Structures are given as C-alpha cells and as structure tokens.
C-alpha cells in the first residue's frame, strides 16, 4: 500500500523518504539469546514513530544500542548523517538524540527545577574551572531557568518547581523526565514507555505534549504497549518480535496485518476484555 512516508510500499525495513536515523545489521546477543537482530531500520524525520511488540521483543535493547548505553555485537547506524556506532551515550545526547527510560529516572533528591536545568546543554558553569567564575555562567543560567520554567508550565509542573523530585507522583515523574529531555531542544526524542503507570487523566495531556513536539519539528520515537495511544498519535508503526522487525507501516495498516495480530495484538485486540467470556479468549477464537 502506497503512503507518503516510505519509498514504495511499506514493508519491514523499508526505506523512508527522509530518514533521520538509519541502522544496518544491528545485532545484540546475551549469551545464546539474540535479543536484537535488525537488518535495516529507518526512522522518518519530523514524525511520530511507535515501536511496538511483545515483551522481550528487543525494543528497549534496541533503544539502549542506538543511544550508546549498550554495545552491539555488530552493526552500524547513523543519526542525521553522522556515524554513531560505538559513540559514548553523552556524546549521542549532545548530538540531539535524547532518550528517556522505561523505569523513570527522576533525580529524586534534586528539586524539580534543578532536574530541568540539568537537561540543558552548553552551560559553561558545568566546567570545573569555570564554575568558580559566576559571571561567566550567570547569563546562561538565567536563559536555562527561563526555558525550564516555560516547559514546567507547559507540563503543568510549575507549582512543584521547588519540590524535590522524590515527592512527585509516578505520572508527574514521567512528565518531568520528558520535560527534562526537551530542555536541550533535541532533534530526536526517544521515549521508552512514556505511558507506563500514568493515570488516564494524565495520559491525555501526555499525548497532547507528544503531538506538540511534532508540531515543533521534533522527531519522536516511542516504545509503547498501549494500542490506543499508538493509534492516536503515531504516524508510523514498527513492530518487533524476537529481535526482528516483523512489520512496518501506518498504524491502521499495521493493526490489520495478520503477522502483527498473531505475534502481538491477539485476536481480541479491539475488544474490551470485560465483555468477552474468558472461555472465548482461552479457546483463541
């Protein structure tokens, strides 16, 4: 089926019109288990891409590999034309590829505003010698604080500004982590299960935030199990199973793909489990 994102029809590992991230032959083995074995992957620029798949499909491992937090057994990948294989995580982040974590990493004993400030780049005061010379970093600090306050307001965390991050709820921490990732105005944001543990009321505002990112020109790649969210905001869906990419395409098309339904969604993907008799599910009908 033709679409405006891929070159030709959507198929696993297909080429994109304008990719921001291109990966080739990325493999990662843990002992005898091949966690990731991706032949070719392209992430389209300026869009929201969802990475879905059953538990153990290798989604988070793929995230870790791409951001330098884990080393692959083989493979190369480029971000915006720059070769990234073997580059340290902090350098990857400086290039504009910022990730969040499945288990939220809020810096608990720092205040919310300090959490945010840490997300910024190019603060000369973060150098050891310069840190003594307040006039050097004072101006940049003011700029950083201003942006942090803007983002906090957008994510409705401004009332928590001076609180320790530890005092936030799980959902608020997810918001804080996302807001912090945006401090450096990244080109690509990689969100690992942004909705996990977030209550439905917050989900809606998180979705809006992610859509807002796209409007600002940021590329988003996220891992998620919540199909509602995937359908709602993703422009493109990549499905992984057992370390491989098994399907790709626009959400509507992918959800109908028999391979995806078999591997992941199950026959009752569209049914509210409360209304189906357990027997029917067990029988697999």
């Amino acid at each position, binding site marked *: 089926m033709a679409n405006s994102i891929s070159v030709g029809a959507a198929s696993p590992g297909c080429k994109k019109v304008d990719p921001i991230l291109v990966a080739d032959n990325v493999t990662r083995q843990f002992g005898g288990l091949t966690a990731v074995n991706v032949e070719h992957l392209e992430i389209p620029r300026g869009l929201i891409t969802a990475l879905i798949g059953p538990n153990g499909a290798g989604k988070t491992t793929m995230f870790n590999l791409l951001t330098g*937090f884990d080393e692959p057994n083989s493979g190369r990948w480029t971000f915006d034309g720059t070769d990234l294989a073997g580059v340290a*995580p902090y350098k990857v982040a400086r290039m504009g590829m910022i990730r969040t974590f499945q288990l939220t990493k809020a810096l608990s*004993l720092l205040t919310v505003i300090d959490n945010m400030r840490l997300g910024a780049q190019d603060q000369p005061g*973060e150098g050891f010698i310069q840190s003594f010379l307040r006039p050097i970093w004072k101006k940049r600090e003011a700029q950083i604080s201003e942006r942090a306050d803007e983002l906090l307001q957008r994510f409705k965390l401004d009332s928590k500004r001076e609180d320790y991050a530890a005092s936030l709820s799980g959902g608020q921490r997810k918001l804080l982590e996302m807001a912090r990732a945006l401090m450096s105005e990244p080109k690509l944001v990689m969100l690992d299960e942004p909705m996990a543990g977030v209550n439905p009321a917050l989900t809606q505002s998180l979705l809006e935030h992610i859509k807002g990112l796209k409007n600002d020109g940021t590329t988003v790649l996220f891992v998620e199990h919540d199909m509602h969210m995937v359908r709602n905001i993703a422009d493109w869906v990549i499905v992984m199973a057992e370390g491989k990419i098994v399907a790709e395409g626009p959400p509507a098309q992918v959800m109908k793909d028999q391979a995806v339904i078999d591997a992941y969604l199950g026959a009752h993907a569209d049914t509210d489990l409360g209304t189906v008799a357990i027997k029917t599910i067990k029988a697999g009908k």
Partner: protein
Amino acid sequence: MDFLNILNLTGGELIGAYTAAYVLCALGLAMHFGFTGLLNFGQAAFAALGAYGYAIATLTFGWPWYSATLFGLVCSALFAVALGIPTLRLRADYLAIVTIASSQALVSVFGVGQYRDVTGGSNGLSQFGESFYALNFLPDQRIELGVLTYSSNEIFIRIVAWSLVILGALLLLILTRSPWGRVLKGIREDEDAIRSLGKNVFVYKLQSLIIGGTFASLGGMVFVMTSQTNQPVTWGTDFTFMTWTILLLGGAATILGPIVGGMVFFALLMFLQNILEGLVNLGLLPFLDIAQVGQIRYLLVGLVLMLLVIFRPQGIFGNKKEMQFNG
C-alpha cells in the same frame, strides 16, 4: 572530679589541630560521598600520600614547605587518577572494595623495610617541620587558655589548620552551588540519567575524586605536622572509618556538617575519657580500671552513633526532607 578541668580539655579538642586534620579529610569525603555518591573507603591513603609526600619532599629532596606541600597534593591527585581510571566505571559498592584494598596496599608499601631510606619503614619519618614552623610569626612564649597552655608553635599549627578548614569549606560551598556541583548531585542520584542528558559522567567523577583526595592530602599534612612525626600505622582503616563517622555525624551532603561533626566527635571522646576516668578514680565503676577507659569510650561513641543513625539518620545538619524520601 574537676569539672572545670574536664570542660577545658574538652574545649581544647574543639580547636585541636588533629580535629582540623580529620575535618579536612571529612570535607573531602563529603565531596566524594555526599555530593557525588562515590563510596570511597580509602580516604586514609589520600591523607597518607599528603603526609608522606610532604615529609619525603622535605627530608629526602630538601625542599621548602611550599614545594613540599605542592608535592604532597600532586601525589594525592595522581593517586586519584590512577585509582579512578580503572575503577570509576565500576558500581558504587565495587569502588568501595577497590579503594579500601588499594589504600591498605599503599600503606603497607610505606611500612616495608626495603624503602627505609626514603619512607622510614615501620618507624616512619620525623622532624620535617622546620621550614613550616619557620613561618611562625607568633611571639615565642607559652599561651594559657584556662588550664591548657600552648606553645607558640601549637597555636600556629592550629591557626593554619583551621584557616585551611575555612578556605576548604568556602571552596566546597562555591563548587556545590555552581552548575558543576549540580551535575555532581545528579550523578549521585542516577548517573545513567545524567549520561542521557549529555554529560561526561566519568570526567566529573574523576574531578570529584581528585578534589576530595587533595582535601584529605592537606588533612594528612596537618595531622603529621602537629607532632612532626609520620608513622605508617596512623593510616590504617581506622583513620578512614573515623573520617566516615565524622561525616555521617555531621551530615553527608552538607559543608558545615563535617566541621561540626569533627568537633563534636573529638570533644565527646575527650569528655567521656575524663568522666569515665573520674568515675573510676572515685570507685563508682568497680568493673573498670583506668587502662580500660580508653577502649570503653569508643564503645560508648559507637553507641551514640548507632542511636544517631537510627533517630537522626541525616546527621546533625542534614536535610530531614532529603532523608525521609529514602526510607
């Protein structure tokens, strides 16, 4: 029992040069542990390198006090680099094992007879303070403070030691309130999160290790300068653990904490010593003799520490809010 005497002796500990030496080491440890989350159990090694560096530079090389001080600081900094490069990638608890082992190894090397010409072997080194005490500008007479009398040199080393404490504390204050210090605190909380935000965590940890190490180095120099003797037995694990005790007593992620913690710790030690001795002399503690008092007071200090950790885990100056969240 002469209470005035006891109070005077206790007060003397508050401004003692040994107290200042431990406080400097504890300030370094605050940098390591309180602000960066590095579990360094080898602080004695950094102090030993300062002390031996100074003594060897003076006695073997014949250098004046300023070059000798610099040499001691450089030795500690190099040790921090040598220790840090392979170990800072390790998880916190492994770093603790490596630091305690390497500090023991280092002190053993200082103590062996083979290098007696330079290190003095198990006897250590002495009489290396001439160049330093030549700086003493105070009149050469004994000064009385209550029942305590100090020689001019004893006053001088106290002035120098506590000036170093004040300067060190100010330095730490500036550092920890800067964006640089903010990154360190972030590393303490979660270093992977800091990596994902584009900071080179390894460099920050190494810088922290070096700075905290040079604080300990100065502490070591003050310690041996007081009596102008430097023996390898000083730098055992008990030195490290006393430093940790002072840090936790005062509050790990504070600057005033290690200073007051050190003062309280040594004052308490002296107070208990005298009170117990007095009680033994009066025959009120028939199960103790005078020789046992020195050991018993450590038991009591241990008890006080246990109570402190249970009922005030954040230390004297720690932020109650910060600790509550951990629980």
